[in-house]
């Protein structure tokens, strides 16, 4: 990464959410790389950016269309690349004509000078890389947002060469591995579709069952069914939807309604309150296994101590399965990986023996394959071998600020805590330096509302309210407030909305309308 000459950071705050990735970016900056940041918040990176585009939450597509229009109008596009590797530019060209400066400024709040400068910097760079985060995907237009980013990279040909391309940063440690290995309703492990008969047969034969052709329900849909009373049993492995899902009233209602709920967890959480049976989980120090990181690197997790409760999750699941009449018996997680390798082509060459020498990046189809360090060179998965431009429209957030709820709440992470905070809040020192949730509010809005730093405030949305202390900071722009979801004592997701990206199912955590009021404890 250090040889990149321009970094375009889009909806990602890596110094907080991915601190070690940010060290690589910092190194590039020290070596003279230019920095463009798109973020409604004045992050560490935004403060140091050559251009900071402080867009309004939910206006990613408008901004990207505006950037592309500037690039095409000025002839800054990479014509050679477009001709050789892409198709459909005319459709995109026509679409972005609708995004002139007046409209884009109005939709995004970003001034035209900044848009021109960013467009020039990115398109004219020798090697520019886009790094995007949950600020792009956690919107109801999350998938389209990511496509719009691809449009920009393709127009400029900033893809397929070293130190260019698009890097997506996701949230949880093993979200990659958990998606790779098949706990998804429409795909069997390794993104192999349940609709594909050959795939069903392969797994059916290996597992000795008949696999259903119809995709299952997504987690949201299961919860919806619970509320309707038509869903009867749920097993939750180490997650806390009653704190970390959006629109918690709905989640709680669902978990209350389901007949039989089993939760396997390290600690009592908001979710375990609804359980009929709680099974103890084992921490990462108590078991062998693998995690797959954001660059698809499969790496070992090693058992350092015995499981506190005597068993790790994989052992417990095998026991339950056996008791239900489907025997599962693995000597150890290495044996599970061997089975994975035999059924999942992208993990085909993985074994614990090989991982002893260090992590391997998938796709790794066989035992002699070294793994794949960059996927972007073969990004053009379409059958024609050409990448296709997508004409996309600005749709905006599912819920926008109005008179009764005049501020936009952005939720996210801070460096010191992780997800529902159940682990970090129980780590000595971390609990002391960041003991509680606070809502970040701009000095302008705070003054308007008569709120001072550390005052108690009530933050409410159409769905619920949360009482927290205020943190008056110019990290928040006028009109936006920011909260994390790390504290059980202030359930930020009581506020967030039910809107989701219909394609990927990702909730719109990054934007909902709220009201902030001063609040005295006696009241």
């Amino acid at each position: 990464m250090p040889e990149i000459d321009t970094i375009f950071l889009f909806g990602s705050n890596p110094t907080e959410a991915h601190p070690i990735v940010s060290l690589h970016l910092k190194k590039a900056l020290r070596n003279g790389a230019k920095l463009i940041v798109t973020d409604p918040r004045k992050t560490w990176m935004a403060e140091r950016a050559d251009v900071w585009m402080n867009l309004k939450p939910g206006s990613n597509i408008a901004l990207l269309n505006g950037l592309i229009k500037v690039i095409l109008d000025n002839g800054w596009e990479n014509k050679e690349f477009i001709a050789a590797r892409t198709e459909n530019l005319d459709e995109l060209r026509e679409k972005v004509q609708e995004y002139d400066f007046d409209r884009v400024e109005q939709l995004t709040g970003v001034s035209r000078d900044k848009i021109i400068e960013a467009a020039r910097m990115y398109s004219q760079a020798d090697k520019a890389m886009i790094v995007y985060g949950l600020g792009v995907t956690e919107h109801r237009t999350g998938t389209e947002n990511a496509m719009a980013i691809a449009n920009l990279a393709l127009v400029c040909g900033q893809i397929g060469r070293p130190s260019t391309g698009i890097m997506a940063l996701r949230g949880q440690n093993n979200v990659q591995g958990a998606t790779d290995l098949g706990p998804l309703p429409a795909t069997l492990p390794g993104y192999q579709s349940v609709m594909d008969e050959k795939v069903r047969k392969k797994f059916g034969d290996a597992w000795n069952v008949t696999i259903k052709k119809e995709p299952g329900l997504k987690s949201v849909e299961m919860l919806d069914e619970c509320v309707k009373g038509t869903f009867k049993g749920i097993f939750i492995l180490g997650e806390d939807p009653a704190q970390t899902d959006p629109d918690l009233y709905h989640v709680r209602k669902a978990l209350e309604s389901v007949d039989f709920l089993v939760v396997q967890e390290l600690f009592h959480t908001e979710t375990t309150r609804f359980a009929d049976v709680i099974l103890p989980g084992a921490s990462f120090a108590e078991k062998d296994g693998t995690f797959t990181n954001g660059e698809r690197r499969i790496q070992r997790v090693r058992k350092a101590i015995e499981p506190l409760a005597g068993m790790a999750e994989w052992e417990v699941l095998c026991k339950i399965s056996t008791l239900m009449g489907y025997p599962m018996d693995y000597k150890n997680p290495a044996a599970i990986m061997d089975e994975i390798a035999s059924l999942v082509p992208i993990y085909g060459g993985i074994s614990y023996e090989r991982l002893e020498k260090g992590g391997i990046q998938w796709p790794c189809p066989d035992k002699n394959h070294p793994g794949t360090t960059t996927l972007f060179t073969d990004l053009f998965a379409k059958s024609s071998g050409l990448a296709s431009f997508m004409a996309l429209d600005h749709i905006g957030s599912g819920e926008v600020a109005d008179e009764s709820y005049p501020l936009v709440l952005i939720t996210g992470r801070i460096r010191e805590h992780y997800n529902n905070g159940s682990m970090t809040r129980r780590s000595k020192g971390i609990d002391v330096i960041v003991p509680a949730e606070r809502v970040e509010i701009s000095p302008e809005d705070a003054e308007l509302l008569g709120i001072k730093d550390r005052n108690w405030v009530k933050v409410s949305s159409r769905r619920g309210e949360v009482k927290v202390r205020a943190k008056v900071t110019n990290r928040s722009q006028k009109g936006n407030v920011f909260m994390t979801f790390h504290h059980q004592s202030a359930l930020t997701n009581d506020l967030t909305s039910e809107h989701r990206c219909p394609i990927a199912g990702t909730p719109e955590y990054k934007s909902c309308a709220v009201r902030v009021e001063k609040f005295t404890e006696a009241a």
Partner: protein
Amino acid sequence: MDQKLNMKINGREVHFLRGQTVLEVCREHEIYVPTMCHDERLQPYGACRLCIVEVAGVPKPLTSCTTPATENMVVTTESPRLTRLRKTIIELLLSNHPNDCMCCEASGNCDLQEMAYLYGASLDRFPGEKWALPIKEDNPFITFEPNKCIVCGRCTRICNEVVMAGTIDMTSRGFTAMPDTAFSKPRSLQNCEFCGQCVSACPTGALTNRKSRGLGRSAEVEKVKTTCAYCGTGCNFFLMVKDGKVIGVESDYNAPVNQGNLCIKGRYGYDFIHSKDRITTPLIKEGDGFREASWDEALELVASQFKQIIKEHGPDTVGGFSSSRCTNEENYILAKWIRTAVGTNNVDNCARV
């Protein structure tokens, strides 16, 4: 492709690439050169002078960390003169260093101790004034014992060069030079990220991890290499284990993703493991609360309830939520269990983030 160039180290023909320093070439070919102020994560500094080597045609020894390797260079890394010089450097450092290895947290994990031993340095060759400064323990994570500081600048450089936090800097030059925060303020979130990078860079016992102090030293602990369970970066580190307890985290400088760097969660977010709040026995709902149960009882109940539901309402009324915090193997097993023993495709990640 960069062209391979040739040079000779200790009589051995070795290849190198343009731009490499003599020290880098030595390390690559596993030729030992002692260093104190050098850290692969940092720019060469050339301050401790322990890495001196002899280069044919150059009368004075050169610091290998700052000397670029050149075609046909002839280098010697060990000679009586180099040993004498290195020994003197170490003895000068020891002249202002408390000789209390037996009580020091870093014993067994200290470059100064190791090199004093290696070069047979005497503790009192240069008797003189020693620092007598109080220990600084003004924050939850980092302990600073200024008397043990050899002013190598690794902590200040990593904080400024790599973390870019600018928390600490050298206060002055000469005998009173010392890494410190601005105005000697305690480290707090106002000025510090608590990444512990400074601790990981310190070659002596001057900077140590406060939470691990007194719980076990290098020789007594088992180090288990693993992958961080927090964010998706996938940093590697060692868990320090003693008597079945995780007592701390130590950097793995060879980690491909993070080269020994960690953030606050990876380095200091481990003691939830032994939190008294851990659920250590299965619990079954009873009335408004839960009662403890054996594994056998709980698993029997889980299996029979799910079987009952499947019998009465069909497998498609049952589902599983997988975990982005669990291992690949566990996620695979969950997906398999739902699709076999239960017999439905209702299995999904929670929030897909």
